[in-house]
Every structure is written in structure tokens, then in C-alpha cells.
């Protein structure tokens, strides 16, 4: 019998794998035949998600413990991987509580470091390895909240703005080096993070929709920046064009 050589499955590393968007993303990659490694802090949640992917797709799924605040451990985390992934997706995020962030610098620090410092530094480390190897895809899930600071969530928004700028710079720097950088701005998504919020239906995506959109944008269409629902491009264009002297009086 003739063995037909087939390429080994590609590997995707998911940072923040216990979030709803994270698990939807893992499903989309596993469905497409990729191997996946799930990384997050919540051990029980990781075990549950690994079991789900293993049962659904009959493939080995590894998991890694990762605390995005422990930036000193990033080098060890990276060296502990079986091999360098083809794609790294970060869905790490923490909405936090805006009012508490205003009063308590510790809360604000947590939000800023979780949404910006941790993911940016870790993706930055992968960017170095990818550039040296000559290929790789980095996906950062940022937020429309990073496009303009609003009273209701500007601590979170500022951190996401930083993350968006970091990804943009990384993309610019690595464009000629075979490394693809994708920024995803999901808009409203029905998840644990938004449970109980009244969200307008046409602007609100399901987690599964976001997972599929991430896979498509990163691996098929090779996009640079995507809104999951295109209508958000229009919404944010309008929000960005409002003059500041008007914007500052608005309740958003």
C-alpha cells in the first residue's frame, strides 16, 4: 500500500481559552483540522474545554496553565510548548468595573495589565520567534472600546487602545518578514462578560460567530483588522468623527 504523505496538522495556541469567545475560537480551529493548545488560569474550566474538543474531534488537545499577570513567567511558558505554534490567538480580556477603577488604582491596574501589558508582552515574544522562523500568525482580540475613550469604560478602553496600537505597530514592523498580525474588534458579544446587559440585537454577535470570524480572518482571508459584524465599522466611523467638544457632552 502506498502511503500518501500528508502535512502534519497545524498548531494553534489559544491564550484565554476559558472565555466564551476563546472556546468558540478553539472549536473553529479544531473543526478545521488544527491541533490546539489551550492556555488559561482557570484549571477546571480548561479541563472542561479540553474534554469538549477531544470528544468532538477525536484529537489530542493539550492545556497549559497561564496567568497573564505573571509576565516574568512568559519565557518559561513559551519554552514549555511542544513546538512553536503556527498561530497564537489572544482572547485575554477583563472588562472590570469602571466605577471601581476610578476609585481604586489596584482595580485599574488589573484592568490595564490584563488587557494590554500581559497580552502585548506575550504576543511580542512570539513575534520575535515567528520573525526568526520566517512565518506565523498573531491574532489579538481587542475592542471597539479602544477607538475612543468614553465615560462608561475608558479604563478598559484605554488598555484596549494600547493593545490595538501595539498590534498595529507589530504588523507594520513584521509585514515583510512573513508574520501576519490580525486585530479583531468583536463589538457586542453575548457572553459571560456581557450577561445581563441590554444589547441591541443587530450589533450583537454570538460567541460562535466570533470564533468562526476569527478563523476565517486569520487563516483564510488573511485580514489585518476586522469587525466581526461589518456594521460596527460604520458605527465606529461615526463615533470617531464626532468633534470632541460635542463628544464630551454626550452620554455613551
Amino acid at each position, binding site marked *: 500500500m502506498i502511503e500518501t504523505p500528508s502535512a502534519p496538522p497545524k498548531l494553534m495556541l489559544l491564550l484565554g481559552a476559558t472565555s466564551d469567545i476563546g472556546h468558540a475560537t478553539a472549536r473553529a480551529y479544531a473543526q478545521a483540522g488544527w491541533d490546539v493548545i489551550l492556555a488559561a488560569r482557570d484549571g477546571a*474550566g480548561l479541563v*472542561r*474545554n479540553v*474534554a*469538549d474538543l*477531544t*470528544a*468532538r*474531534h*477525536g484529537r489530542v488537545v493539550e492545556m497549559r496553565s497561564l496567568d497573564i499577570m505573571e509576565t516574568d513567567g512568559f519565557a518559561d511558558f513559551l519554552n514549555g510548548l511542544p513546538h512553536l505554534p503556527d498561530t497564537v490567538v489572544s482572547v485575554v480580556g477583563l472588562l472590570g468595573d469602571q466605577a471601581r477603577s476610578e476609585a481604586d488604582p489596584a482595580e485599574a491596574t488589573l484592568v490595564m495589565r490584563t488587557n494590554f501589558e500581559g497580552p502585548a508582552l506575550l504576543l511580542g515574544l512570539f513575534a520575535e520567534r515567528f520573525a526568526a522562523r520566517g512565518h506565523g500568525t498573531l491574532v489579538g482580540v481587542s475592542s471597539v472600546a479602544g477607538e475612543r475613550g468614553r465615560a462608561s469604560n475608558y479604563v478598559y478602553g484605554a488598555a484596549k487602545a494600547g493593545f490595538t496600537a501595539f498590534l498595529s505597530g507589530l504588523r507594520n514592523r513584521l509585514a515583510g518578514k512573513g508574520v501576519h498580525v490580525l486585530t479583531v474588534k468583536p463589538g457586542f458579544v453575548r457572553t*459571560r462578560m456581557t*450577561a*445581563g446587559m441590554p444589547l441591541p440585537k443587530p450589533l450583537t454577535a454570538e460567541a460562535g460567530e466570533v470564533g468562526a470570524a476569527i478563523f476565517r480572518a486569520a487563516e483564510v482571508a488573511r485580514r489585518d483588522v476586522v469587525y466581526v459584524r461589518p456594521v460596527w465599522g460604520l458605527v465606529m466611523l461615526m463615533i470617531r468623527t464626532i468633534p470632541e467638544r460635542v463628544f464630551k457632552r454626550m452620554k455613551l
Partner: protein
Amino acid sequence: MSGAAQEVSGWGRYPRRTTRLVSVRDEDAVAPLHRSGTGLVARGNGRAYGDAAIGADTTLDLRGLDRMVAFDPGTGHLTVEAGVLLADIIDAFLPRGFFPAVVPGTRTVTVGGMIAADVHGKNHHGAGGFGAHLRDLTLALPDGTVRSCGPGSELFAATVGGMGLTGTILRATLRLRRVETGWIRRSTVAAADLDAAMAALEAAHDTTYAVAWIDGLARGAARGRALVYRGEHATRADLAALSPGAPLQPPAGRGALAVPFDLPALTLNRVTVGAFNALYYGRGRAGAGRDGLVGWAPYFFPLDGIRDWNRIYGARGFLQHQCVIPKARSRDTLGAILERVSHAAPSFLAVLKLLGGGGGLLSFPIRGYTLTLDFPATPANLALLDDLDAIVRDAGGRIYLAKDARQSRDTFEAGYGDAAARFRALRRAIDGEGRIASVLSRRLGL
């Protein structure tokens, strides 16, 4: 406990009731919810037609329990959380050569919902209901205690078909059957009247799948004329014989057709439904007698091809009436029902099927014929259904709780009799505080 009060309805969009809807994210979240209130019931994907999955006060949305837990390819045993959709199971396992042992008429249902309604499929005469293929299940009892049980236990028998009233089903292990392809080898029998339709279903007792589409508007000599569809999972050999070179799995369908808005109330009337039925019957009769291959999706789930098809009945919603009549009384009783309906209201859907017995304490199937009819939810049709219930009651038949939105307590008592009494006794024993209650359980005094 979070969760906003909002209007919730079943798939038929009648009735609509205000309930607090709470999203459940993992199994551990269920017990505290049970302990914190009364009048709650679990809801899966909302495909029960009437008021079964609307909590009397609080409704637990279990769609977040959507993780598969384990699969053993040697035995076909699959353990899943209760909110996993049948569609996800088929998507994951049909390419690997497995198919659920029993599937209802839609794949957009959760495993928990299928157990609670003990749904049946086109193979009930041979395979029994969904519950007959469970190895075990785990549920949170009304007091929050988590308990696993399996066939042979009283709790299991009450939970299979128990409409979620014994507690919240958290996970279950089901057996998948092996199949060689994703195709169904289908043959069609054109039956000129009800007697012929029943004879064809009777003759299909050793066929895996059998179901009849009935022209609910045909009257007189043609009353009950039907197309009887028999089906078997196609083997590789069938595929080679009937469609050489076809792929083992049917190509994925195009994006589902959707009903984008509520259709005007007049769209489905005697003329349009009558014309459709005549065309459909004629086309089926022309193709009868020849074996053909049909993909699993259009064979088992034809209406899933039209997203939000419940909107074709307009904003008023619709009623599905599904009864089962003991075999000895089926012929005359079904004739009487079809006669009554053919003069009163056009039913867009009319399906006839021969059921075996068995199942859980409150499971719907008894040995006999089940007839399913659809009607817009109008005052005239509500009265018509009361008339149909009287005919069903007289014949010793019963109404399917998963479809029901309006049967009276008398009809329910007459149909379920001793089983209802035993179910109530168990409910008193495990739920003295009345923690679990749906709009349906309050309506029927369950």
C-alpha cells in the same frame, strides 16, 4: 441571582408568558439556583411548542451547558452536558461513522430537552424513544442534590419524558449507532386513502424508519391519502448501486432559507395549502416504488432547512396537535379527526406514524397511531382542538406534552391516568417545596 424578567414562549409562539430568564454557564451553577427560589424549570433550545419550557417564575436557560464530555468509539457511548444540540452531535460524529439512535423532526434541540420530552423518531416502532438509548443521566434534584441514575431506577423512569419536572438534567450518556454513510435509502408508497396509509405503515414494521405525510385537506374517498416514506441507513453497497461515485457524506446544504418576518395571516389558507398538497401528492405518487438516496438532513429534518419556519403562521403563533390513539381504535378515530379537520381548518402539516410502546413514566408513546396537525393559534382553532381532544379522549388516546399549549386537565388525566398519579406521588416525595414548576405543570396540576 441575575436574570431579567422577559416574555418567553415555546416554538409555537403561543402562549407567551413573563418569566425571569437566567443563563446557566456551568453545571455547578444549577444547584444554588434550585435552592434560591421556587417555580423554576430548565429550558433547552426552546423547541417545545407550548408552555413546557417556561418556568412558572424562573426559567433556567441551559444552552451554556454545551460541552461534550467523553466519547468511546469502541462502544459508541457519548457523554455530553445537557445543553449540547443534536445538530452538534451529528456534525461531530456522522463523519466518524456514528449517528444518534433516535432523532426527532428537528436537530435544533438539546439533549436535555430530548430526554425531558422522551422524543421519538421515525424508528419508534423498532427502536423506542430517545430515553431507551441512554446509559445514564445526571440531574440536580429539586433540592439541589446532584444524582446520577440509569435504566431500572424510578428516578430515571420519571425523568425520561418527565418534562423537566424531576429536576434539572445536567448531563447524560447516550449510545450512538454505527452507520456507513450519511445517506438514507428511501422508498415511497403512495396511499390513496387512510386505510392504505395505515396498511403501508403496518407493512413497514421491519423497516428502520417509516412515516406518512398526509393530505389533511383531502375529503371523501381520498380522505387520509398519503405518501408513506420508508428509510434505511444506506450502506456503502447501496451507495455504489444507486449512485456510483457519490461521496460517503452528502454535501453540506446551502445556507438555510430563512423566513425573515412574520407572514401575513392569510398566507396559509385552504386554497394555498390545498394546491400545495395536491402538487406534493402528485409528485410523490409519480416517484413511488423506486428506491432513492436522500441526505440525512432533508430526510430527518426537512423543516430545519427553513430557519424560523414558525413565523409562517404570523405573529399570533400556532398550535401543534399531536395525539396517539390505541391501535384498536385508530382507524375510526383518525378518520373522525381528519374528517373534522378537513371541513374546519387547513393543516399545513399532517404526519402519521405508528408508535411502539414503552419509555418513561410520562412518555407520550403508546402502541398505536400518532397524528400531528398544525393550526394557527386563533380562537376558532382553539375551539376546534377542544373538539379533537374529546375525540381522542373517547378513544383512550393522549396528547403529547412537548407539543401541548392548551389541553385541559381532564384530557390530560384521561390520557395519562395512572402514570400521572404515580408521577405526582414521586414529585411530592422529591419536591415538597414546589421548587420545580413550569407553566405546563401548573396548568395540568402536575
